[in-house]
């Protein structure tokens, strides 16, 4: 392999992370080949593509892809590039069209990516064969209403790829609808955000909101490795809102009254999944968070732009058939803590920025992810079984382990 990462036999390389993987351009290019080309990457929700001609666009690694509903009702996926001179066939995020006509020279492709029209074809001679210019297909499959695409999947079946994450996706994602998307860029490696999502040690330190709410609380919860490469964290809501209110009031120097803030007056949500928050990480770039009390369920998917820059795409979700007042509540307030404008995620962006700066210090070449010493796949909330699961997957795909 091209990468000069040679793990020592004596070190558990899912517990010790070589910091070069966060900034080295060669490792990044290898990730595009070995991880992004060979994994299943989340593209959107199937119910965003209901009618023939409905399409959405995404990127797999840095490669542009179209997912469309064809005239037979099947999902199709193919590269978003004209086979003639490479122009992207559409720059819309979502839309509906009967066919894709390239703006550059007018070549037209149907909803399966097959070339159907070429202006003035005679100049190409008698042997010109349209089939030679069909757009190569991309694998597309659906699970629990979620659409994933893959370029050259190492695990041919999406269900097998999702493995132990399946039951959780079924539980939290089934029946959801997209309320809106928000994208933001942070100056850091793509893995940092995914790691941070699966890290339940940091919240009480990075987020004063969480720290104040946990003060004096015996915090409980669990941290799970899910095979292969995935993870989940389940934890009860133990944040003490009066303590958060008091901490905010102290900073402001005035009393703040949560009772007079509609943000804290939750409507009765029609569906509930028990008494725990859930944070699910699916290898390599998909994250889902279910907020206890149905404040919101979100998906985040990462789009790398190089070793040191990443776009986070957030999808805010509602549940089909929920009452209008619940839907309105979600639209107004469900991402209050999220996005780079969020009361929580705003600080995650800052943490990522600092890590990306810190990994340049060569005298400290290793980051540590060894919390939780008990054997097995489950630890406590602040343990790092979920992170180690991701890095087991990372090493499998990058060539230091065996693919499943």
């Amino acid at each position, binding site marked *: 392999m091209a990468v000069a990462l040679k793990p020592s036999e004596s070190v558990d390389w899912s517990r010790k992370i070589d910091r070069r993987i966060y900034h080295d351009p060669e490792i990044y290019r290898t990730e595009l080949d070995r991880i992004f080309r060979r994994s299943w990457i989340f593209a959107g929700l199937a119910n965003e593509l209901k009618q023939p001609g409905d399409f959405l666009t995404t990127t797999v690694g840095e490669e542009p892809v179209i997912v469309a509903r064809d005239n037979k009702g099947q999902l199709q996926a193919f590269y978003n590039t004209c086979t003639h001179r490479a122009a992207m066939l559409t720059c819309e995020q979502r839309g509906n069209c009967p066919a894709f006509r390239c703006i550059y020279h007018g070549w037209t492709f149907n909803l399966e990516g097959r070339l159907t029209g070429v202006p003035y074809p005679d100049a190409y001679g008698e042997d010109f064969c349209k089939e030679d210019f069909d757009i190569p297909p991309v694998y597309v499959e659906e699970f629990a209403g979620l659409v994933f695409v893959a370029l050259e999947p190492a695990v041919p079946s999406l269900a097998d790829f999702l493995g132990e994450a399946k039951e959780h996706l079924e539980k939290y994602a089934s029946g959801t609808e997209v309320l809106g998307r*928000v994208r933001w860029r942070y100056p850091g490696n793509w893995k940092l955000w995914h790691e941070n999502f699966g890290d339940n040690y940091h919240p009480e330190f990075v987020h004063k909101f969480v720290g104040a709410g946990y003060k004096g609380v015996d915090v409980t919860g669990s941290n799970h490795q899910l095979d292969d490469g995935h993870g989940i964290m389940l934890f009860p809501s133990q944040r003490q809102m009066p303590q958060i209110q008091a901490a905010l009031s102290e900073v402001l120097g005035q009393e703040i009254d949560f009772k007079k803030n509609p943000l804290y007056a939750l409507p009765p949500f029609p569906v509930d999944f028990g008494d725990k928050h859930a944070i699910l990480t699916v290898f390599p770039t998909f994250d889902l968070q279910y907020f206890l009390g149905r404040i919101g369920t979100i998906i985040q998917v990462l789009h790398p732009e190089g070793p040191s820059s990443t776009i986070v795409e957030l999808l805010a979700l509602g549940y089909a058939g929920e009452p209008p007042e619940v839907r309105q509540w979600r639209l107004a307030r469900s991402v209050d803590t999220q996005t780079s404008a969020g009361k929580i995620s705003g600080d995650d962006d800052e943490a990522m920025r600092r890590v990306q700066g810190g990994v340049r210090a060569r005298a400290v070449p290793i980051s540590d992810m060894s919390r939780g010493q008990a054997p097995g796949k489950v630890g406590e909330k602040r343990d790092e079984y979920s992170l180690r699961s991701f890095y087991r997957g990372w090493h499998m795909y990058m060539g230091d382990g065996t693919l499943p």
Partner: protein
Amino acid sequence: MSAPSASRPVTFELQQQIERALFNYARTIDEQRFRDWVELFTEDGVYSVMTQENQQDQGLYLVMDEGREALKERAAYALGFWQAPRGKMLHTISNIDVEPRSGGEVSVRSYLVAYRTEAAGDTQLHCCGTADDVLVLQGGRWLFKRRAVVVDNGILPPNFTELL
């Protein structure tokens, strides 16, 4: 807001007062006087931020602060409850269309362009967009009953926690 109404003329004095209220708003947040920012709103004042993409879709808000207590909470975040440091912000406001409404209120649409400079860092274009405001005269001051910012950015910058 449609084309300026001929039936409700905007006096020079009103236009000037509203412009001064908007410029004072920008200066208050640029000088990081966040407690004063709260006082620029009425008791039931609403401050919201949304992207243009979501405005044209189902209307998902990034920020929705309804009433004094919600505004105070945001001020506390800006004063240090966020660990992310405040940048040096520069908000420019232009294209100010004032339209008087009934009950002594005026609705105002303006353009917003904001730049952000990190401590010892580069200056970046932070966002641009429009603000739809409703102002009302209370106790001799024009206060914001509503400030609804819609940013054009399709991809937001990191640390979009700055007030707009």
